[in-house]
């Protein structure tokens, strides 16, 4: 598993340095943006994109987006969504998001960083020419943190476009760049060799092969450089040189098996079979599914044969034959298992996703293929991309399935709300309308009193502030006076005086108490206003609650119907794509296993002949020995 990890990392690194991990702003103003980051920082790209996308959509839909808290992080958010999409292998969308940043009104460093990211997308998607057109647009200030990465990308793009000399210049300037140790010198070596400057290129590969580091990835690129250089020297029959370079490869690294095999051959071609046996004997004790180990199983008896230890050679050829037979059965079983669909079923098993050693675990499951045979294939870019797509599709499938159930639950909730509210609402509405008309009447009265008091500040009207008793008494006096004068006669003097006195008292009270009454009335009005405000709040709360009651079950039908249709359509698409992607994975795996099978069959034939030959020789040796005795 470690080997697969290192192979993958090297592949990614040599192809292009991956996107930087998301980072949170120093002062986070928008919690929803922080939530998207929370998912992104865990590699939960789907959730991170879905959340950030929604936030960006809401932000851009605002009348005054500058008042939204996301405004403080808008540049980073636009960038991040592109990065997240890139990490989720949505290169088309990521490209569009980053292009939007480039074309927006942004500062030079921001624009340059966006172009860098766009160029990286093109490069990763095997479009080196577009990648070059993109990096050519970079001008002015480049953020310091991406300067080396940009130069490294530039060099890689130039190499991919066959412009090795220009790439060399850039890579020479990056030899001390932090975080790129080994990768720059390895690439420089390759660029020089491709440019026809073989000796200089080899010198760089050689120096890469001697880098001192504790970093696993740097050590792996060091091994890779040694293996590449060693193979070249071996091809050129420079066996001594090849041996020295291949012996630098670590015994525990991802390239150690190939290096051990090559080192053995370097000795063997010099006729030194005893020494060739040292690396090969180490190699044959390793995982039998490895191609180099299988070859070493033939190479070891071959060396013994050359050393005239024919009986040992015959035994070892026999043992190799047994191993090959077993491995061929395993391969046949694996191919059958893949064709029966067990491989794909195993790939999506939930428990495997939780385990970093999932490839190793996969081979332990019943009816799954021997994954050790697929390690190299699994480390290849095409298989990795296809596998990730397949797993993503499976993830989408389960989500869509869950959402369909969610919609059922939503409809259930809506149905319950409708059943509860609908019968209640007509009566509530009736009562509310009655209360509403009362309230309006009182409010009108309150307004009238308010206006009257305001007018009385300018033109005092004590009569307006007469008490109810005073008004009754005043009316009674007027009535009495009217009765007395009904016959057309004048009011008798004494009674008239008494009436006038009473009127005078009333008048006196009303006028002398006017100021106090006015103040009190004003205070009462203020108290009333407070009550009215409270009433209005309750009124608004009721209206809101009433609206919420309706809104809790109305207006969802169309949305849910539409969502259901979209989900159904997407599920159909996902199912179809899964089938196609799955078939592609199966084909890749079967092709790989078939290739290994054919190679093993070839080995088996060779081993059979060699076994027979070795036995013959051993028998001849024994006969000669006996004859000598």
């Amino acid at each position, binding site marked *: 598993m470690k080997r697969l990890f290192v192979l993958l990392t090297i592949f990614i690194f040599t192809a292009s340095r991956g996107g930087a991990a998301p*980072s*949170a702003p*120093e002062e*986070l103003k928008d*919690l929803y943006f*922080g*939530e998207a*980051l*929370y998912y*992104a*920082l*865990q590699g939960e790209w789907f959730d991170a994109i*879905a*959340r950030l996308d929604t936030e960006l*959509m809401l932000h851009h839909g605002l009348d005054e987006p500058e008042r939204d808290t996301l405004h403080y992080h808008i540049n980073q958010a636009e960038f991040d969504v592109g990065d997240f999409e890139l990490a989720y*292998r*949505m*290169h*088309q*969308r990521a490209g569009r998001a980053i292009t939007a940043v480039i074309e927006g009104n942004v500062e030079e460093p921001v624009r340059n960083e966006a172009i860098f990211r766009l160029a990286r997308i093109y490069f990763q998607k*095997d479009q080196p020419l577009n990648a070059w057109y993109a990096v050519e647009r970079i001008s002015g200030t480049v953020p310091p943190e991406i300067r080396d990465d940009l130069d490294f990308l530039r060099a890689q793009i130039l190499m991919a476009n066959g412009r090795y000399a220009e790439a060399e210049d850039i890579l020479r300037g990056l030899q001390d760049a932090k975080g790129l140790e080994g990768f720059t010198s390895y690439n420089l070596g390759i660029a020089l060799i491709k440019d026809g400057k073989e000796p200089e290129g080899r010198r760089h590969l050689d120096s890469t092969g001697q880098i001192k580091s504790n970093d696993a990835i740097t050590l792996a690129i060091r091994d890779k450089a040694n293996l590449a250089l060693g*193979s070249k020297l*071996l*091809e050129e029959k420079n066996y001594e040189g090849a041996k020295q370079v291949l012996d630098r490869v670590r015994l525990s690294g991802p390239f150690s098996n*190939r290096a051990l*095999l*090559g080192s053995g*051959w370097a000795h*063997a*071609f010099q006729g030194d079979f005893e020494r060739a046996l040292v690396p090969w004997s180490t190699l044959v004790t390793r995982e039998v599914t490895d191609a*180099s180990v299988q*070859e070493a199983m033939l190479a070891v008896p071959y060396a013994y044969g050359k050393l005239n230890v024919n009986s040992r050679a015959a035994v070892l050829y026999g043992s190799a034959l047994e191993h090959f037979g077993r491995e061929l059965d395993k391969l046949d079983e694996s191919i059958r298992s893949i064709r029966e669909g067990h491989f794909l079923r195993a790939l999506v098993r939930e428990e495997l996703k939780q385990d970093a050693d999932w490839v190793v675990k996969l081979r332990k499951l019943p009816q799954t293929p021997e994954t050790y045979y697929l390690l190299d*294939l699994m480390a*290849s870019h*095409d*298989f990795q*991309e296809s596998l990730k*797509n397949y797993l993503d*599709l499976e993830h*989408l499938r389960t*989500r*869509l399935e869950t959402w369909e159930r*969610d919609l059922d639950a*939503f409809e259930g909730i*809506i149905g319950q709300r409708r059943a509860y509210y609908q019968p209640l609402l007509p009566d509530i509405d009736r009562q509310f309308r009655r209360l509403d008309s009362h309230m309006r009447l009182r409010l009108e009265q309150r307004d009238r009193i308010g206006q009257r008091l305001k007018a009385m500040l300018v033109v005092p009207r004590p009569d307006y502030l007469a008490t109810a008793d005073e008004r009754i008494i005043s009316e009674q006096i007027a009535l009495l006076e009217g009765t007395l004068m009904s016959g057309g006669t004048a009011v008798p003097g004494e009674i008239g005086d008494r009436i006038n006195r009473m009127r005078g008292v009333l008048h006196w009270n009303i006028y002398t108490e006017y100021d106090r009454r006015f103040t009190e009335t004003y205070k009462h009005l203020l108290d009333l206003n407070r009550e009215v405000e409270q009433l209005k709040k309750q009124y608004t709360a009721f209206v809101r609650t009433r609206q*919420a009651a309706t809104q809790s079950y109305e207006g*969802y039908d169309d949305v849910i119907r539409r*969502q259901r249709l*979209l989900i159904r359509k*997407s599920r159909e698409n*996902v199912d179809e*794509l899964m089938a*196609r992607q799955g078939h*592609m994975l199966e*084909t*890749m795996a079967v*092709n*790989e296993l*078939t*290739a290994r099978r054919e190679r093993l069959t070839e080995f088996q034939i060779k081993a059979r002949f060699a076994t027979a030959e070795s036995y013959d020789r051993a028998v001849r040796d024994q006969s000669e020995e006996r004859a000598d005795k």
Partner: protein
Amino acid sequence: MNCWQKGIILWISVLVLSVSAYGEKISREQIKGLDEQVQEIKSDVMGIASELKQLEEKLLYPSSTQVAVFVSLVSGETFRLDSVEVRLDGKPVAQHLYTFKELEALQKGGVQRIYTGNVRSGEHDLEVFMIGKSGGGTDFEKSERFRVNKDIGPRIVEISLASQSIVLNER
């Protein structure tokens, strides 16, 4: 020796990682074409996710009653957060046990929405209870009580955790 010279050519060919040309061939174009279609379906599903999220919020957590509680770590804090429990008006409404990945995401500045629910307008009692391990490896528990006022709009509450304190940040 000749057959073994062939062997070495075979060995060198093993160095090259490539999709073998056996049986049905898979072309780069096929891989690319399918990849583009996968990208399209991802985009479609992302669109559904976004709309469903809004539908869910509107249906289950209308803004007039919505309350959302977010959890963040104070910048630079290195203590190990094991779990957080949130109680609203005395009732436990959210409990979370943190995985290493989640804790790392919080330490790097991510913010976790630990609870979304509905409450009436007015004052509410919010209690946060956390369990963790200090930098020195000692187990600790801490709890804090806050008063939260819910108005007409959605109420967003950020709880900022440190080994020494639990702080409510007004938003």
